[in-house]
């Protein structure tokens, strides 16, 4: 299971013939791929291409109809879930609690009872741990960053981010990209589903293009193929 372009690297995630059926609709129609450790992958495609379904399957949130997923060599996703951090467009945070209170609770889910860790992670996303304002009153940029902090609590080897830049102001988005670069530098493997591929131009190691439930292309650069009318900034 080695990447032919770089025999030294190993596949941290390998998926084979993934099929996900919702009644008559197939969200994933046979996805097979290998992903190497320590890289930042941007997953692109139109709505309904299956990007979110793929990510949720990797996170263990969406059981597959058919196919296998191997994460860190394990088939049982529940055994490796402490190595995964997941973030989606909904914040996965309680609106009525402050950032620190939220993180203190979610840290417990991973067996972490360390306030210092929560504070460190909040500072890492450039937010203030002392802020007592409830998360519901944050701006979208702040909320997404706090959500990212939550995903980082357990220091995961793999980060799965679904539309992290959606509705986020430009400055926050660029800051988040900077954070992701730093995390890749420390050896994390990062998957970003996004419609704003231009933000990752020159940053992502690989762009994975999906269409109609399949991976149609994998390119090292962001050159939008002609049949993909992506937004330009």
């Amino acid at each position, binding site marked *: 299971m080695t990447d032919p372009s770089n025999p030294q690297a190993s596949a941290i995630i390998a998926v084979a013939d993934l099929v996900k059926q919702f009644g008559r609709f197939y969200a994933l129609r046979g996805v097979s791929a290998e992903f190497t450790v320590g890289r930042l992958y941007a997953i692109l495609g139109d709505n309904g291409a299956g990007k979110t379904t793929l990510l949720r399957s990797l*996170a*263990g*949130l*969406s*059981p597959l109809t058919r196919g296998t997923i191997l994460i860190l060599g394990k088939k049982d996703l*529940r055994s490796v*879930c*402490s190595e*995964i951090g*997941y973030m*989606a467009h*909904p*914040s*996965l*945070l*309680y*609106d*009525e*609690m402050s950032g620190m209170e939220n993180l203190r*609770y*979610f840290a*417990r*889910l*991973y*067996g972490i*009872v360390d306030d210092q860790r929560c504070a460190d992670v909040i500072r890492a996303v450039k937010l203030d741990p002392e802020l007592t304002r409830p998360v519901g009153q944050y701006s979208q940029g702040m909320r997404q960053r706090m959500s990212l902090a*939550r995903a980082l609590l*357990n220091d995961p080897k793999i980060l799965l981010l679904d539309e992290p830049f959606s509705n986020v102001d430009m400055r926050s988005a660029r800051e988040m990209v900077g954070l992701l670069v730093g995390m890749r530098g420390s050896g994390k493997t990062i998957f970003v589903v996004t419609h704003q591929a231009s933000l990752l131009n020159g940053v992502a190691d690989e762009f994975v293009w999906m269409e109609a439930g399949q991976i149609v292309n994998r390119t090292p650069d962001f050159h939008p193929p002609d049949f993909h009318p992506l937004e330009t900034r």
Partner: protein
Amino acid sequence: MSSDGLTRATLIKDLRLEWRSKDAINSMLFFALLVVVIFSFAFDPTAEESRQIAGGLVWVAFLFAAVVALNQTWARELRNQVLDAYRVSPAPPNSLFLAKALGNFIFVTVLEALMTPLFIVFYNLRALGPAWQLPIVAVLGTWALVVNGTFFAAMSLRTRSREIMLPLLLFPISIPALLAMVEATTSILTGEYSAKFWIVLLVAYDLLFTMASLLLFSFVLHAE
């Protein structure tokens, strides 16, 4: 990782969140009050009759109040899809279930504590039998409703018409427990016969369904 610690942390978190968004509690308390008043208007018995029917009235009223409370058990976890954060983590599902069930138990007990004095007043109730058994029946009966109610509320999460799905699932399965609660209460109020069998039945019901819920909850939590 201590799962008791996680249950406690989740319970405290839920209570704190409930306290902060007080509107839900207030409207539910008021609803409970209204239920008592409506029932008292609809059934206006003499003192003799009231002891015979009060058991049934009180528990049906508690049941309706409980359903309103149970329906919003998981609502907080659906906002911002917080439940996904739990599902993705290695945290044991049973800790979440127990915390929710205990939170509901506290909540429904508060409602009952409000409604009971009102019923006593409106119906001039006085227990002719061993009144000390009444709190036991209340605790066992409330847990019977809450443990299944919490479980079925979780099952209803992935259905259309979530709010009606909960009572649809809960009421049939609760019938033996309801019969036991009502009969036990009536027998204590009238003093005519012993509530012992019904209390034992409630204990059996509670044990059986608590175990079943704990064993099967992970399937429900991880269902998409």
